[in-house]
């Protein structure tokens, strides 16, 4: 399916989702050009200018180290994109492979999917916490942990969808024409799953932001010096009565980004093949 047409259909007549999409584009731009946009170094400490109110030159004020909140928020967009994209890639690649292979090779699948069932007995954040206990706090590990958590649900979903496609006539036709296993899986089945995967990706992106923020808040996510929106909230929460802006801006940024991603996912889901619609659990 033509991706451009798919996107155009999905957003036609959906103003809120379109606004959400545009907002996400802004976040992406901010992430890419963070060093050019941010007026200050996000890590530069200024003991004199601590807890300055929003205004000039500190648009969003400063935190208790005197760091510029606006610059940190811009760099936070970078972390948002890195964590989101990273988790999506880990979840889709691991979960996708497990799900597709399980559905295609039924004997292996029986074994693998039981394993997925067991992992799904661990509630999401709890599983992330368990994994994080075993690992150091780092950007890579946060991505890995969140990605693995959502790999289980992705595996389940792809398993169901691949099973449905496997019964279709075009797969039989490919088998009859002598196509090999990898050709059937990746050249015949996978292309049909691209748009449902896109929907799943957008929901994982949204969930990953919330999970990453929760981990940051618990002091178990990104290393504390990394400027992420979650860390900004976590570190500054004790100053909330003196400097309320320190909570408002990063919090709103998280809410708007997650909301936008959910809106986009919802819009995309409504325009995919109705057979797969019920497979994807989103908001």
């Amino acid at each position, binding site marked *: 399916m033509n991706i451009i047409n798919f996107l155009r259909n999905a957003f036609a007549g959906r103003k809120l989702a379109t606004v959400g999409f545009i907002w996400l584009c802004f976040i992406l731009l901010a992430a890419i050009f963070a060093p050019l946009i941010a007026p200050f170094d996000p890590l530069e400490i200024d003991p004199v200018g601590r807890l300055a109110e929003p205004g000039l030159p500190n648009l969003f004020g400063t935190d208790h180290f005197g760091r510029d909140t606006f610059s940190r928020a811009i760099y936070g967009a970078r972390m948002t994109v890195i964590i989101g994209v990273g988790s999506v890639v880990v979840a889709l690649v691991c979960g996708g492979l497990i799900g597709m292979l399980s559905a295609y090779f039924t004997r292996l699948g029986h074994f693998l999917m039981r394993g997925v069932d067991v992992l799904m007995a661990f*509630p999401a954040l709890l599983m992330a916490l368990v994994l994080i206990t075993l690992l150091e706090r780092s950007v890579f590990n946060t991505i890995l942990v969140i990605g693995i958590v959502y790999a289980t649900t992705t595996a389940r979903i792809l398993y169901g969808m691949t099973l449905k496609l496997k019964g279709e006539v075009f797969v039989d036709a490919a088998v009859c024409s002598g196509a090999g296993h990898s050709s059937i899986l990746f050249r015949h089945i996978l292309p049909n799953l691209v748009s449902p995967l896109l929907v799943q990706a957008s929901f994982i992106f949204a969930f990953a932001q919330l999970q990453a923020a929760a981990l940051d808040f618990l002091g*178990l996510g990104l290393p504390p010096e990394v400027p992420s929106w979650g860390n900004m909230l976590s570190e500054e929460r004790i100053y*909330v009565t003196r400097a309320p802006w320190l909570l408002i801006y990063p919090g709103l940024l998280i*809410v708007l980004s997650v909301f936008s991603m959910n809106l986009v996912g919802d819009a995309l889901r409504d325009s995919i093949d109705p057979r797969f619609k019920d497979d994807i659990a989103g908001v």
Partner: protein
Amino acid sequence: MLAYTAKRLLTLIPTLLAATILVFLFVHLIPGDPAAILLGDTATPEEVAQLSAELGFDRPLWIQYFLWLGNVLQGDLGTSIFFREPVTAVIGSGAETSILLASMTMVWIIILGLPIGVLSATKHGTWIDQITSSGAMLAASVPTFWLGLYLIMIFSVTLGWFPSSGFPSLSDEGGITNLRYLILPSLTLAAPNAALIVRLVRASMLDVAREDHVRTARAKGLHPARVAIKHVFRNALIAVAAAFGFTFAALISEAVVTETVFSLPGIGRLVVQSILRRDYPVIQGVILVIVVLYMVINLLVDLAYARLDPRVSLK
């Protein structure tokens, strides 16, 4: 129904066993001598050697597993490094808070989520639907701790209506009125989950409304409200019940965050503190308890599902 329950119980056992293996392996995945890990940094070499012998750490892994499982089945989850108390006692002390918090949250989810979802579905396509369904999606996009912090700011600090943190037991002074400590936490925890239920009720009611039997109900001359509740909502409840297990999982996870925000002495906060304190026996015990609980909840959800849908239990 009895046969169905038995069958579901039987299928639960392998998954449960596999989960216990994972929980058991947890301690062994941490680098270092497991006995030293379980006893903490302050342990003497003699203590380490003694525990090592007691738990059979010098023997093959599978024997260790059965030794551990035997202890677990007898209610022995080990000893907390931090509290120097049995893990079961440590978990037990957090149980009251967590159970009360979960129950109150479920009440909010039901009294907020179901009616708003029904409203949104029955007013499908109107501005009421747009506001409620977009509003629900917005609510599901808010980090719980951020919401909690703001509820504390508004209702505790500014208005002084509710206490901002802690929870004395119901058996302490104040009795049942101590539940007021849990109002803000339960609302915080309920918000995103109720939002998911709103979306779910709406989506499944819209699906059901397109089914042929709803047209039959309308052809009987029933009042639209009766059609909406007795035929559409009742059938949509099947899909909603199936998702309640998922909601409960989210609840357990998010309780970790909420209990931390409101400094509640529950199991969720215990997990975080134990991780920060490297109190591995407690982490292991709590995970085991939560996983078992989660499976039991899922079983109950399945049974409720079978009750709601006559096609399931009779198969």
